[in-house]
């Protein structure tokens, strides 16, 4: 008998007799001898529940999390405040353990949550419709590119080099298997080289992908790009930081055809990189080309409001081979966190988060550069993230900060080899004036 599995030898015998088999081993006789492990798993001795919890805790205590450190690290994942309402709602078992809402009659709660989330994302991005969510910001970008190829019947997608490097890698993986040609445009002074981009656009271009604010935290010149791509009947895909939409023009305002992004900042914990939340929204015209699920509002036979998965012809049930994508997973619990977050904050609250983030980031830049050891790397407008350059080696800066329990300064050389000893700092509304001044002090003291 295994610890914690309450079947006695007697129980096993009864169960085997019921299915007419002589031994547990006989359940596995279909597995050829030569692929079997033929030994016990290499696991330690079994532990009691209490011992096991203690052991796992000792392992997790070896990690440093943002509970131990002051976080000035961003680069796509952000330490924003999360109201306690989020955890309370997502911890309810009706949401926490719910399976996919295939059966509308018994899934109204899950469906309504997704519907509300979609509505908020559509409002936030200024688009007509949003889907139920995708894995993360990177998969949302890649799916958007595939969607643009499908909608325009063109095979080339232009991407700015200032898009998140991980997103570009996911995009290239998708493109490789869908025979999509990816053309990358260089950056100049921290922003997309718009002239080079304009010259690259042709009748073959399905879409241009821009990230705003870009990976370096800088606001891109979207208007010029929008005009150029639409003149050639291609699409504009914008990847945005949803928090920035509290103060910046929305993709809808800027004429984007598809808006995507990483939704982690909306009430989701950092969680060592996942699970995260990819959001996607588009225009009514392109609605049927959008991958993933969409929940729609309808009425039942009694005229009562109800919710259903809709437009499923685009998905996995029929015409699979014709679908933009066969992706039908969505991140419902993360989407719920985002919906609770946005509901708790409201429009004014989100604007406040965005304003405080940008003001504190600009204050941090001012404080950091006072010592003369650090200079702003690109003289461009930025939102909540900025790059500084220094003569000190980046690794020395990072470890000097860690010694003082500060996490920060993403080394940009990983993003672009030319950006040696440049560090990217993110500042959210969660950071206090004292923490920002401490960061500047510690940075100033690093040799």
């Amino acid at each position, binding site marked *: 008998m295994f610890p914690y599995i309450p079947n006695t030898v007697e129980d096993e015998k009864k169960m085997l007799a019921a299915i007419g088999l002589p031994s547990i081993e006989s359940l596995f006789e279909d597995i050829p001898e030569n692929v079997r492990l033929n030994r016990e798993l290499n696991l330690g001795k079994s532990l009691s529940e209490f011992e096991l919890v203690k052991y796992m805790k000792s392992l997790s205590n070896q990690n440093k999390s943002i509970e131990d450190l002051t976080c000035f690290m961003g680069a796509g994942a952000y330490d924003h405040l999360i109201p306690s309402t989020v955890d309370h709602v997502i911890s309810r078992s009706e949401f926490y353990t719910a399976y996919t809402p295939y059966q509308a009659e018994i899934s109204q709660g899950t469906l309504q949550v997704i519907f509300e989330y979609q509505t908020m994302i559509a409002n936030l991005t200024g688009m007509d419709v949003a889907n139920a969510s995708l894995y993360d910001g990177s998969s949302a970008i890649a799916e958007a590119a595939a969607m643009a190829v499908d909608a325009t*019947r063109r095979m080339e997608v232009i991407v700015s080099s200032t898009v998140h490097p991980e997103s570009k890698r996911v995009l290239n993986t998708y493109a490789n298997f869908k025979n999509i040609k990816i053309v990358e445009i260089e950056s100049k002074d921290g922003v997309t080289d718009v002239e080079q981009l304009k010259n690259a656009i042709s009748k073959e271009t399905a879409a241009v992908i821009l990230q705003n604010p870009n990976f370096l935290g800088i606001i891109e010149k979207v208007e010029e790009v929008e005009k150029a791509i639409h003149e050639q*009947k291609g699409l504009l895909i914008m990847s945005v930081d949803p928090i920035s939409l509290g103060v910046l023009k929305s993709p809808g305002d800027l004429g984007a055809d598809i808006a995507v992004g990483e939704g982690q900042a909306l009430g989701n914990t950092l969680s060592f990189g996942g699970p995260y939340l990819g959001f996607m929204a588009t225009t009514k015209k392109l609605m*049927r080309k959008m991958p993933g699920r969409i929940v729609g509002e309808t009425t039942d036979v009694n005229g009562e409001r109800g919710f259903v998965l809709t437009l499923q*012809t685009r998905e996995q049930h*029929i*015409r699979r081979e*014709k679908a933009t994508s066969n992706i039908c997973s969505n991140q419902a619990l993360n989407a719920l966190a985002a919906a609770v977050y946005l509901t708790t904050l409201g429009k004014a609250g989100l604007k406040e988060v965005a304003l405080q983030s940008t003001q504190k980031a600009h204050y941090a830049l001012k404080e950091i550069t006072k010592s003369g050891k650090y200079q702003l790397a690109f003289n461009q407008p930025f939102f909540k993230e900025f790059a500084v350059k220094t003569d000190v080696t980046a690794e020395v800066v990072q470890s000097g900060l860690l010694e003082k329990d500060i996490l920060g300064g993403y080394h940009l050389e990983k993003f672009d080899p030319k950006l040696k000893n440049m560090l990217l700092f993110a500042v959210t509304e969660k950071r206090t004036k004292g923490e920002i001044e401490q960061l500047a002090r510690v940075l100033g003291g690093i040799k």
Partner: protein
Amino acid sequence: MKVMAGLYYSKDHEWVKVEGNKAYIGITDFAQSQLGDIVFVEQPEVDDSFEAGDDFGVVESVKAASDLYIPLSGTVVEVNEELADDPAKVNEDPYGSWMIAIEMTKEDELKNLLTPSDYEKVCDEEA
């Protein structure tokens, strides 16, 4: 089940109305009745070029979604914009609800199409 005289037909249940070098293309009464209530017609853009047999769009009903196959090679010169707002027109008036008009590039392909009486036989076999 109506088959109109004076039109060409395809085995895929499209009808073709020729005016000079221009051909109007839609789906037949039989096709719309098989599909049921039509909720969406996906159409190509003006200037898109096709070879005979290519799929040029999709017609989606409450119970199915079917590709539209172009019976003739050509370039799209007009798209029936009315169907974007009112796809049910295809159910109400299949022969009046053309989907696209093309400039034919290979007129001799017309001889591969069915006459109304041949097409009636196709429908009888399928019904």
